[in-house]
């Protein structure tokens, strides 16, 4: 198992080694030591490998990930797993702003709390947060699923499109055009699957409420001017 120590190896070398990995290579387990809050760790990977990062990372860890499983044994800074395409990013600690921003696929699991703008402009990613999320989360969320076991901050789902939001705790307030929606069987099944895939047990889908778009801002109407 290659272990890369970022206190002695330049970041560029780590990322280039990870980019050089092709389909079917033997080095499928990687370890990264001493990240010390560095930015852009393990970004742009496109290979079915797993990378364990021992310690806290800075901005954009796992950015634009494809196929890989990236686990951060620590906290992550802004924009973790931003624009992820596929694969999985797991953060054992807390994450900063913009977690999973514009993500298109794959799964982001945050075992701690997420700060503001979690899932901003998400476009297909599944995000599961075991703790709570901050304000303006799922702003302009287009599609995908956001599951929150704790509470959601102010203005959840502002200007949301078709993403589905599931929150188990309290929602401080809903953003423009975001409303609570009926939890139907299909949603319970979906939630069951998301919880199972993120390794969460002892939590029932029925404990969540579902939120989504009222679709009133989809076409311009001057009488909605307060929302624009």
């Amino acid at each position: 198992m290659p272990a890369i120590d970022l206190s002695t190896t330049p970041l560029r070398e780590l990322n280039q080694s990870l980019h050089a990995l092709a389909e079917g290579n033997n080095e499928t387990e990687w370890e990264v030591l001493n990240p010390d809050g560095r930015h852009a760790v393990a970004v742009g990977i496109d290979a079915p490998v797993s990378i364990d990062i021992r310690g806290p990372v800075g901005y954009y860890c796992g950015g634009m990930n494809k196929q890989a499983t990236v686990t951060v044994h620590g906290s992550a800074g802004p924009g973790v797993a931003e624009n992820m395409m596929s694969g999985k990013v797991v953060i054992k600690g807390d994450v900063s702003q913009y977690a999973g921003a514009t993500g298109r696929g794959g799964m982001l699991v945050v075992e701690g709390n997420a700060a503001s703008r979690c899932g901003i402009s998400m476009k297909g990613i599944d995000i599961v947060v075991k703790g709570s999320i901050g304000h303006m989360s799922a702003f302009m969320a287009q599609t995908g699923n956001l599951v929150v076991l704790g509470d959601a901050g102010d203005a959840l789902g502002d200007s949301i499109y078709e993403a589905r939001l599931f929150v188990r705790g309290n929602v401080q307030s809903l953003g423009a055009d975001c409303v609570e929606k009926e939890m139907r069987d299909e949603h319970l099944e979906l939630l069951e699957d998301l919880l199972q895939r993120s390794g969460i047990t002892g939590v029932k889908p029925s404990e969540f409420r579902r939120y989504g778009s009222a679709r009133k801002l989809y076409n311009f109407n001057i009488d909605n001017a307060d929302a624009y």
Partner: protein
Amino acid sequence: MCGIVGLFLKNEALEPQLGALTSAMLATMCERGPDSAGFAVYGQSLDGEAKITLQSSSPEIDFPALAKALENEITGTVKLTQRATHAVLTCRRDELDTIRAAVRRLAPSVRVMGVGEAIEIYKEVGYPTAVAERFELKGMKGTHAIGHTRMATESAVTTLGAHPFSTGPDQCLVHNGSLSNHNNLRRSLAHDGIQLETQNDSEVAAAYLTWRMKQGLDLGQALEKSLDDLDGFFTFVVGTKNGFGVLRDPIACKPAVLAETDDYVAFGSEYRALVGLPGIDTAKVWEPEPATVYFWER
């Protein structure tokens, strides 16, 4: 646009390490603000004594001679500690105003960076690590410190444009963000007799807080008020003789991380700034909520 670090010690045993810890934190924020850097250090205050931090833009300034000349103006003594372009004078508190007036008269080109019982302020143009080294931040002791690295947005890269800005006795403010109504505010402050030295938006924020406190508000209340009156994006960290405060604007885009243990409260624009602190792995770490005043006092 900038990097901010701050460290407020709760455990006295750490006080000898304040400068070393702050210096390491500041070094991680160089890329966020490569143009200039500065820091305020709150040391032990002695009964009846006051400190005044001076800065000279001309390298040939003879601070010892100035200190001598100042002593002739008062009955007490003036103690001088010089660090590169800065000097800290210590005098009797009741003679502070006399000293300030005399500095203005005897050395008009010398600027007063800050005054108070505990505060010392150092700031300069240059790469943050070089600035910290020039002033020997590593060796400084004290109870709390606030540091700043600056990427200038619209105002000049000068020593005066560097942070922290002193907001009054023992007070200082650093800022990351960009205020969008500082010109109008500057005009109303000027109307009320508050003079600003730079075109810097952060100085307006500092002066605004001073102005509010002159009206009788305490720092916490002044910060609350600023949420109504300041427009734009900001994260502020402020220091007082005994206190340490943090405030983010209601949109809260500019990054901010707080950490607290039994030994300290620490602030960083990024978690990277906090990585080297003792016990950070078990600290409570969180991001300050928008439009919420955080304040610690000993």
